[in-house]
């Protein structure tokens, strides 16, 4: 007395077909494609920074301080005569590093915790869920700033702080997915096959939540990038002379009236990166959701 399953001719091609289908759906969303390309561009710049930047980030040229764009310095120089373009490129590396690794850290720690909470339920779930709720009550940035202040300012600590701040969100996602997935019939089927809990969690539940996790990751990265910018701007993140978008903003602050461009360049970079990841993540979520028709 339930919905009858369609008995349509099964397609002949194996698993690759799904990938092609998803690609087609994705390509129908120009914004998402744009987001992906821009995000990829940033990643590439971050990886190949040493090759792409015309100067090293610390290279000073005291003859050309606060200079406008020229053939020698495409985006001009800052107050210490350092090439803005190079700093921007190296800054991409720092910001991307923090963004991506903070997210990875959060995932690696949070997903198992969330899965355990969702799978075992009972008091374990109660404890984890309530702790997560407490952490989620803090605005993400307050949490991150607080942690960064405790840990001390550095790129590594900024990564840690932002990663830890992103953990509660991932726990909640992983827990929710686990709660839903364990109701699927293939879980009791695995129990009947003789599977133990570890097998069920890692072989049956985890692979089926990767879609959701990937989407969540692409939406967490921009938060971490923005977080790094704010932490560094406030002085509790990356420290000068290391160049990151946040430190560039911090250093440009005294010169807001004289040379607004020094704030604009890193600002635009942040906006573009955050937007790109967000738009890509949104589109990806649509594409992967079986309920959307196109």
């Amino acid at each position, binding site marked *: *007395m*339930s*919905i*009858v399953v*369609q*008995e*349509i001719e099964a397609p002949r091609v194996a698993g690759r077909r799904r990938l092609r*289908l998803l690609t087609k*759906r994705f390509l129908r969303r120009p914004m998402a494609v744009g987001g992906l390309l821009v995000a990829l561009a940033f990643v590439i710049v971050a990886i190949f920074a040493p090759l792409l930047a015309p100067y090293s980030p610390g290279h000073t040229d005291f003859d050309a301080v606060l200079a406008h764009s020229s053939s020698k310095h495409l985006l001009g120089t800052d107050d210490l005569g350092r090439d803005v373009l190079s700093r921007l490129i190296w800054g991409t590396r720092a910001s991307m590093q923090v963004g991506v690794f903070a997210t990875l850290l959060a995932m690696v720690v949070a997903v198992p915790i969330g899965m355990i909470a969702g799978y075992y339920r009972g008091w374990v779930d109660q404890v984890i869920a309530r702790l997560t709720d407490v952490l989620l009550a803090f605005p993400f940035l307050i949490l991150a700033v607080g942690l960064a202040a405790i840990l001390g300012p550095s790129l590594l600590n900024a990564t840690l702080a932002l990663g830890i701040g992103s953990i509660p969100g991932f726990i909640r996602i992983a827990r929710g997915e686990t709660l839903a997935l364990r109701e699927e019939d293939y879980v009791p089927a695995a129990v009947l096959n003789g599977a133990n809990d570890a097998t069920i969690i890692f072989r049956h539940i985890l692979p089926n939540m990767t879609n959701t996790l990937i989407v969540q990751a692409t939406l967490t990265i921009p938060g971490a990038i923005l977080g790094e910018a704010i932490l560094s701007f406030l002085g509790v993140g990356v420290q000068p002379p290391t160049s990151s978008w946040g430190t560039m903003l911090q250093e440009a602050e005294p010169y807001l009236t004289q040379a607004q461009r020094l704030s604009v360049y890193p600002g635009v970079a942040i906006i573009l990166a955050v937007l790109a990841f967000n738009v890509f993540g949104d589109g990806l979520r649509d594409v992967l959701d079986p309920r959307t*028709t196109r």
Partner: protein
Amino acid sequence: MSAEPLLEVSDLSVRFDTDEGPLQAVDRVSFTLAPREVLGIVGESGCGKSVTCMSLVRLLPETAAVSGSAVFDGVDLLALGPRRLRRVRGREISYIFQEPMTSLNPVFTVGDQIGEVVRRHLGLSRRAARQRAVELLQLVRIPAPERRVDEYPHQLSGGMRQRVMIAMALACDPKVLIADEPTTALDVTIQAGILDLMREIRERLGTAIVLVTHNLGVVADIADRVIVMYAGRKVEEAPAEELFAAPQHPYTVGLLGAIPRPGERQERLEEIPGRVPAAAAPLEHCVFADRCRYADETTRTQVPALRAVRRDHLVACFHPEADRAA
């Protein structure tokens, strides 16, 4: 039925534009519905029966290309503009769905939901609408209707919810009720009650009913005339008793042979080999050809037209049972 038909569907076709290319869901289906008639449309999943009905009330998504005509009361439903369509839907032609759980809004009371229909179409006041809601609940045999009218859907059982859906559908005394698998999600004993109710509706209110189902037992219980659909096409049409007594299309025969019959000892159930084809465009041959034991050159290259092989009995087949009965 000598009366003027209520609904006349001609050459209805529906093609979907899916991720994997076009899909011909319905291919040139024609049928009529007479007043007070119960028409059963039967077929398995994917045969296009639900899509056919949804296209009549224009419930299909944007990706569907609908062609053909569906003339109701002198107007072609498929060509109506949105305003006139809204006046027809719910008022002249009602629709009920399979899952009463998801068809009712959980945050409104039953009375509110029924009331919404009458207030929109008949312009009744709140009080009058509530009164009408109570009347309707009584009509569909829900006990203690004055109390139930203020309850929320989750407080009612599945069978009750389906009755509420029926009440909503009858609120404006429609000429046609389209019921899309109304009892599939219900228990067998509850189903019996709903079918009785539908019979009563036809008797007392004179509503014509289009009943879409995959359950041949339901059709045997309540339908006057039956249409059998397969892969988007109508393959057989006959009065109910005639269809069961002398099924003509090999698919219908196979379908009847596949159901276990209560009260009879059977060794094996009849199987229909193969699977339903999913066509991108209308097939240029008999849709059942690749599963039919009587398939030959003709069936693989030509489309069989609907013709009468017995009195009042149409079939689209080159080799109907009548050929072998002789």
